[in-house]
């Protein structure tokens, strides 16, 4: 529904402003005057700006293209390996949402700013610079995986890159992201934390408690809802009393944006603005409208949506969109873009080999990484 994101970047007052009237159920509330609400909403529709207007070089744009393509090819291969039972557990694919991770990574200081997300984490990890090798090896449950085979698909971490994890309990990582931002502020850094979550997660109390704390303490955190329209089999309007999720910001006096997740430039622009706000100590919320092409996880038969709906969304594909842009602006030839594809495919192929060849973790490692003591007395 990216087309709903409006025309130009408009600043509009909260549409809920009139809700704060001085009567409830027809009873006048004497002496209570509603203040006009000051929260602003921005929209970042697709095809809003050119790369030049955004200050992006040709190299930047090509990097973005490569990043999105790497995520796509990585996950296509992962799905195949799952089919071959090389990968166990859950596998939640990010295919269709790559513009979000890539637009974000381009807009932050990697290694200084933090990202935390849920279990659909491959895209963010790769966009931030985690390697295909460590990511694939983790899916294979091998010792060279980014979490030493202990986490699997849902738990990618890189302390060095400040990828603060994929997390498995819906909503539970949102307060953690807020705490990461608290520490940034406490230490006097101007770094920020981006907490990503799904349209299903916004209904958890954890989000609302975290948002209130962030507003209360002026924390440099950005709450980013990746609204891919579904939480498992539940369409967003079947779970949300207010399906315009960006309006949740009203309750916490936060600026908020509605962004097209099909256009990497829109994501990039919005992120830049929100990151700048966060660096000034202003928490905010972004709703990015996107779509996941695959089932919720590999075991989901997707009976809750039609093929027509899915096909229509695939027409808005963020990678195809950027490819068309590159060609149209004569920034690359078809042959050059095909070469990029060949390169990332090769990289992913090699990561499968790497993962195959990496050893399974030794049984003794089951007792490692639990406490910092080396001689902790475990119970038997």
């Amino acid at each position, binding site marked *: 529904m990216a087309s709903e994101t409006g025309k130009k970047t408009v600043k509009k007052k909260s549409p809920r402003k009139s809700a704060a009237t001085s009567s409830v159920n027809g009873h006048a509330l004497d002496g209570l005057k509603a203040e006009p609400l000051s929260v602003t909403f921005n929209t970042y529709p697709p095809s809003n700006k050119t790369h030049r207007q955004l200050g992006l070089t040709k190299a930047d744009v090509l990097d973005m293209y490569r990043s999105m393509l790497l995520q796509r090819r990585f996950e296509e291969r992962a799905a195949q390996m799952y089919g071959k039972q090389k990968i166990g*557990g859950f596998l939640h694919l990010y295919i269709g949402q790559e513009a979000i991770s890539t637009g974000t990574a381009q807009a932050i200081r990697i290694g200084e700013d933090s990202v935390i997300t849920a279990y659909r984490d491959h895209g963010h990890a790769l966009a931030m610079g985690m390697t295909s090798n460590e990511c694939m090896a983790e899916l294979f449950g091998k010792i060279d995986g980014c979490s030493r085979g202990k986490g699997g698909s849902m738990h990618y971490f890189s302390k060095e890159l400040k990828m603060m994890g994929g997390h498995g309990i819906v909503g539970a990582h949102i307060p953690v992201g807020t705490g990461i931002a608290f520490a940034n502020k406490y230490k006097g850094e101007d770094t920020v934390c981006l907490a990503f979550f799904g349209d*299903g997660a916004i209904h958890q*109390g954890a989000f609302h408690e975290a948002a209130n704390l962030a507003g209360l303490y002026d924390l440099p955190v950005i709450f980013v809802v990746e609204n891919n329209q579904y939480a498992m089999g539940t369409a967003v309007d079947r779970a949300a009393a207010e399906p315009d999720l960006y309006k949740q910001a009203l309750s916490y006096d936060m600026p908020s944006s509605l962004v097209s997740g099909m256009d990497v430039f829109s994501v990039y622009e919005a992120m830049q603005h929100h990151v700048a706000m966060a660096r000034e100590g202003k928490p905010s919320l972004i709703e990015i409208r996107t779509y996941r092409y695959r089932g919720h996880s590999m075991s989901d038969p997707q009976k809750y949506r039609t093929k027509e709906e899915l096909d229509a969304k695939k027409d808005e594909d963020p990678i195809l969109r950027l490819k068309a842009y590159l060609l149209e602006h004569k920034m690359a030839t078809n042959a050059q873009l095909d070469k990029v594809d060949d390169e990332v495919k090769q990289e992913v192929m090699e990561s499968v080999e790497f993962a195959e060849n990496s050893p399974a973790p030794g049984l003794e490692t*089951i007792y490692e990484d639990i406490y910092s003591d080396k001689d902790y007395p475990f119970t038997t």
Partner: protein
Amino acid sequence: MAELQLREAIRAAMVEEMERDESIFLMGEEVSEYNGAYKVSEGMLKQFGAKRVIDTPIAENGFAGLGIGAAMNGLRPIIEFMTWNFSMVAMDQLINNAAKVRYMSGGQFKFPIVFRGPNGAAGQLAATHNTSFESIFSTIPGLKVISISNPDDAKGLLKSAIRDDDPVLFMESEVMYGMKGEVSDAKDYLIPIGKARIAREGKDVTIIAHNKSYWVAMKAAEMLVQEGFDPEVIDPRTIRPLDMETILASVKKTNRCVIVDESNPFASIASEIGFQIQREAFDYLDAPVLRVNAKDVPAPYAKNLIEYYMPSAEDTYKACRQVMYAN
């Protein structure tokens, strides 16, 4: 008798009870239009309508609390947790409200509510998705905890749970949902809460195990039988209240006991049963009580590690041989 999958037996219990009593409703994530994340509630929306089979947002604390309030006010909710792993979000509602308000109000309110869903490990799902929680909830007075191992028990015990006037936590297992077994179709088939089942009679060693671990125990028992031993296997079925009478009678007969329990070992159900046995049957014991638990670590993802983590038939077999001094 009919052969049913575990999920069908659970559904049959809910359907029969909902047909009988209008005040029962089912609520949870994906239970309605999606027909249940593990298809336990398949077809129930069609039969009972959206008023009684209700999808929720992902908000465990909210809908668990809603259920408790509804129970306080005259309804009999069945609240499904997609898995018990996610009930942690609702822990406060379960422990501080469901378990305690009856007591704190001097008995003015009852809580006829069932919380149900799959519990324990289901494979390579890593630490947050693979924990066995029955021992944690069992420490809380005011809650009843049932952990079933087969379709027939599932039906009989769930029907009893739904009719019970106290909060009952009903623990299933997603890896057992497809398991088939004979299920009674007797009208009002109720298995009493708090009665253990002697699954195999024997005289050499008592093995106690519930839920998935029951099948681990049965496998170990088979291995022992091959070697000429005669183990007794007891499925406690309900963890709280716990049928110590049956367990003690068995231990007094066999004089040896091994407990298989997917909880982490520290302060586990096995610890509690072991303690009670030494207090009540110390003079009958010919060997220390042993337990076979999940390892004392969070569940790992890697295939070889999660297999190592889980209580195994092999370990159970070894523990039995050890208490029989057959090693």
